[in-house]
């Protein structure tokens, strides 16, 4: 088992004819993911790399039975692409696109919340269930099937963590990059809940960074509900203050956002926190032994 995706997931790619859409479609397929359809408005009817392309998500779902979408549509049309995936009733939409205007995402998120479609991202590396299905831009080779669930706001830092886990023989059940934007679909807790309920996930590694209060929220949830060991790393302990994120933002989070505060809260909630990004794998080992 795993969460969100597995070897049976039938994937459609929105924005398949774009440069990165096509490149990563090929990469995902080479990993073994079932890519059944592509969607690019205006290009319906052609085949690309043997994959049928449709004008709309609805059509693609109708003809191929796709249940999951990977979105590479450029920023001006990306929020619309997310809504189209929701409207077609997909189970999951993973939006890789970076740079979607906040105003567009506020509305898209509000509509998506009311739909049955789960959203991962935007501005994320995607989701991978090692050995079964890769739905994103992460390098497949660093992953190995196993029992550690990984959830992260970061991209390449997740690769670093996964590689350390793999090098120590700790395989992964599913790795979810939830994205670095201020407005995202699934948050830490949404992913943690699923790992908690997944019989094949036995431990969780969580990667956070400065800004916002999402890690603290997750820490309190872990303390209350999590049945499995959790280890974490927070990037930005040495990040300089002064590059402030805007005036009023600070008050909403009630002074949260600093790495030290996040680390302290996580530790107080029973999470093993790696003090160095070079020892993320060891922190996971330690949490499992505890």
């Amino acid at each position, binding site marked *: 088992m795993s969460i969100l995706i597995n070897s049976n997931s039938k994937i459609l790619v929105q924005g398949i004819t774009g440069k*990165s859409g096509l490149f990563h479609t090929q*990469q995902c397929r080479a990993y073994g993911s079932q890519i059944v359809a592509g969607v690019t408005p205006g290009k319906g009817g052609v085949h690309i790399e043997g994959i049928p392309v449709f004008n709309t998500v609805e059509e693609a779902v109708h003809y191929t039975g796709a249940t999951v979408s990977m979105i590479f549509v450029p*920023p*001006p049309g990306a929020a619309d692409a997310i809504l189209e995936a929701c409207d077609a009733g997909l189970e999951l939409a993973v939006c890789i696109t970076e*740079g*979607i*205007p*906040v*105003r567009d*995402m*506020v*509305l898209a*998120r*509000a509509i998506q919340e009311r739909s049955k479609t789960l959203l991962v991202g935007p501005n994320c*590396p995607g989701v991978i269930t090692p050995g079964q299905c890769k739905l994103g*831009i*992460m*390098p497949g080779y*660093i992953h190995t099937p196993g029992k550690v669930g990984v959830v*992260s*706001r*970061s*991209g*390449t*830092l*997740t*690769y*670093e963590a996964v*590689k350390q886990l793999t090098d120590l023989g700790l395989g992964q059940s599913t790795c979810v990059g939830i994205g*670095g934007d*201020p*407005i995202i679909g699934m948050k830490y807790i949404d992913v943690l809940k699923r790992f908690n309920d997944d019989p094949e996930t036995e431990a969780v590694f969580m*990667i956070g*960074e*400065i800004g*916002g*209060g*999402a890690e603290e*929220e997750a820490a309190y949830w872990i303390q209350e509900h999590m049945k499995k060991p959790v280890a974490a*790393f927070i*990037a*930005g*302990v*040495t*990040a*300089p203050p*002064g590059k*402030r994120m*805007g*005036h*009023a*933002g*600070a*008050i*909403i*989070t009630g*002074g949260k956002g600093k790495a030290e505060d996040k680390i302290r809260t996580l530790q107080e909630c029973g999470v093993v926190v790696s003090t*160095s*990004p*070079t020892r993320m794998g060891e922190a996971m080992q330690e949490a499992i032994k505890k």
Partner: protein
Amino acid sequence: MNIHEYQAKEILSTYGIPVPRNRVALTADQVERGAKMMGGHCVVKAQIYAGGRGKAGGVKVVHHPEQAAELAKELFGKRLVTPQTGPEGLKVRRILVEEAVEIAREFYLSITLDREQSRYCLIASAEGGVEIEEVARKAPEKIHMLTIDPFTGLRTYQARKIALALGLTGGVCEDCVELILNLYKCCLEKDCSLVEINPLVVTRAGWLLAMDAKISFDDNAVYRHREYPDMVDYSQLDPLEITAGKYDLAYIKLTGNIGCMVNGAGLAMATLDVLKEYGGEPANFLDVGGGATREKVAEAFKIILQDSDVQAVFVNIFGGIMRCDVIAQGIIEAANEVKCLLPIVVRMDGSNVEDGKQLLLESGLNVQIGDNLGDGAQKIVAMLATA
């Protein structure tokens, strides 16, 4: 993206939000004439991309035009240091001359993004003129917050509740309702990540005025506002940060001597953390983007070396799908072009990693290979110590 107070006020006034009469000046002579226009008694405000100007001497009330001119001479070209600028401060190139107003009451009003709720959020307080963070610490009960439903938008009755909560009554309360609705309209139409009026005042004569204003635009939405790039005041930005921006690289100057190039913001932050752990001091934060290309890597390398504080360079690229030999070529080209003799440590992961390492080691550069993150950080600190 930030803009000056005077630009924020221009935008607000196009949304019918009243601002004091003012003039923007580039010279002391203009300041003097501006002051005359206001009748002599006026406020002189240095325009920089940071708050906290008042306490730093950047905002003063003057009583006649000559006094305004003298103050302007002092301010122009000066680097104003406030708690938000960093120790170097920011250079004053523009001064806003504004009519002096008799203030009866001061408020705080802003709209920004509530990340937890994924909604815009209105924040108001009867404690105007002080930083909202300070109010949040000392008297959080004085802050009124309203999460805005994107389907209904901000409704009139909601704006009225806020105005009443601020203690306004009668005509000025209704003026405030209209102002709040206009502020939300401005926030949406102009793609703002923050619109803030602090203080919003009621004058002795009973009129609302936005005495100070701050607007930040959502960087992701700049593409749909053609006028925004021309609004940037480059004198307020670090020259290397400007160059980096042109190549779509995120660069922040720091105080150490190890130049850093990393792909991905999270890994870049983690790299700074590791350097410090091993006793190194990073000279910069630089994210070349998750999928770094050869061109970007080359440009980034050149930007790092333009900083005269840099005495060594640490490159950490977790390429994954990208080919390491291509990245290595980018580094070698850039280093040769600028004749870089500094110690370099490269840590790479991704496809063709062995070819990439080989290329670097045969390049003739003063380069070592880091086998992993910790090893790379240790090596660059050691190379710097013996250099």
